[in-house]
């Protein structure tokens, strides 16, 4: 087994109308790493994420997850390894109660009903929403929905968590609580986001995407200190690294 848990090699992808979305992306991610993928709108972040669980098939290039080269034969194993949390929890929570939703993945993977129940209870307890077990998802707040969405992949015990904009639409406190929750996970994390302050809190490494290519890949603080790179990628420094607007001192 290679020590790289995610390996993307020269990944290219065109949409059916020939719009190029990825134009040769390569990177490697090790066990337990927490990596942010940042970039302007339309830079290719979401398209990249959809390759990591085999929803999209590369036009060219390779994706390797753990021991598996991503092919139609291994896609089931890959999806078990990669837990994907979507941006809009309403897309992810499609069953009529929280319990059924969190049980959906484990049931598909063929666990026994007792096993499934135990997994669901554990996942719900981990994200702190055990009391919502029997509620219909459409009556939860966005913060609660997000937690349930995370529980719905945790219940499959994935090695890698892939998240698309996990902090979007949350109030400041719910956002802080979510960051604390994600910090407590030991999974390999890949987070696509515009919330650069969250990146500072969660990810030691950042991959910057621009126009379907990786324009930088390195330690988060180094990348966020590079004004020229950020400007070229249509990004701005995280707020806490900018000067204080009231006392005018440099941060």
């Amino acid at each position, binding site marked *: 087994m290679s020590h790289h848990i995610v390996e993307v090699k020269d990944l290219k992808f065109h949409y059916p109308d020939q719009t190029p979305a990825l134009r040769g992306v390569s990177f490697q991610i090790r066990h337990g790493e927490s990596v942010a993928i940042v970039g302007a709108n339309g830079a290719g972040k979401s398209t990249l994420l959809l390759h990591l669980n085999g929803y999209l098939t590369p036009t060219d290039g390779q994706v390797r997850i753990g021991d598996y080269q991503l092919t139609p034969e291994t896609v089931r194993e890959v999806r078990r390894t*990669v837990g994907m949390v979507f941006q809009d929890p309403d897309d992810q929570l499609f069953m009529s109660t929280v319990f059924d939703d969190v049980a*959906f993945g484990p049931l598909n993977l063929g666990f026994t009903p007792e096993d499934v129940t135990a997994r669901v209870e554990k996942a719900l307890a981990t994200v702190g929403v055990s009391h919502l077990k029997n509620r219909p998802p459409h009556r939860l707040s966005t913060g609660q929905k997000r937690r349930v969405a995370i529980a719905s*992949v945790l219940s499959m015990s994935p090695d890698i968590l892939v998240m698309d904009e996990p902090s979007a639409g949350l109030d400041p406190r719910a956002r802080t609580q979510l960051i604390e929750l994600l910090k407590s996970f030991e999974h390999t994390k890949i987070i696509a986001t515009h919330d650069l302050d969250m990146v500072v809190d969660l990810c030691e490494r950042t991959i910057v995407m621009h126009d379907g290519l990786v324009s930088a890949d390195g330690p988060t603080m180094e990348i966020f200190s590079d004004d020229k790179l950020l400007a070229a990628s249509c990004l701005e420094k995280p707020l806490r690294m900018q000067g204080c607007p009231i006392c005018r001192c440099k941060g």
Partner: protein
Amino acid sequence: MSTKIDRAFYDIGHLDILAEADTPLHRLDPRAKLLTTAVFVVCVVSFGKYEIAGLLPFFLYPAVVIGLAELPLSFLLRKLLLVSPFVIFIGIFNPWLDREVMVQLGPVGISGGWVSFASLLLRFSLTVGAALLLIATTGFGTICMALEQLGAPRVFTVQLLLLYRYLFVLIAESIRMMRAQSLRSFNAKGRISYRVFLQMLGNLLLRTIDRAQRIHMAMLSRAFTGEIRIVRQFSFGYKEACFLAGFGGLFLCLRLTDLTALLGSLVLGITG
């Protein structure tokens, strides 16, 4: 206009809140309630066209359920009124089509049309009322699962489940769209032109397709293979059996014997 839609939307959600209550009736196995409701509906519907007296004793069941489950009567009546125009339109021509006098009340002759119209309204209130009560004491999702346990095809129950789940998302989406439209259209009447309406409808369809694709994606990434599985244990004990046998038996009895006439003749017999 949009506030009316908003209200109707929150009202649907309110049935879910009612279903979360914890009364002896709520705790009953959903299959018992489903089957009892089915027997009830069949009995009510199978009465003759001009039947009125025979239907009245059936109001006992909704009354008992509302009492036991502590449901708000006014809310349920509002729901019933909301659907009533459909039935009124179906039956409104009966009095014109069927003018033969059936009942003579002193100088006033009541035609068969009016009698059958009244009977239709009674049957509507009973059956739709029973369905509303079933949802308010059980919850829609649980009913679907009970249906499946009773042998309904899985495709059907899963469709129902997803339909109910995304009804709220769809309505919320339409409300947002209507709001955006009304905030930027400055005609005093607030009416939507036909052309704009068609475009909005098309847009809603496209959004729905996008959403469906994202949901499918979410399902696939959780090892979905084409079959939706659910763990749920129901227990059909003696309480359920008593409920079903008791009410089912009562309904059949009411259907097969003319209780009103029996009571009437009894009273007349005593006084006479």
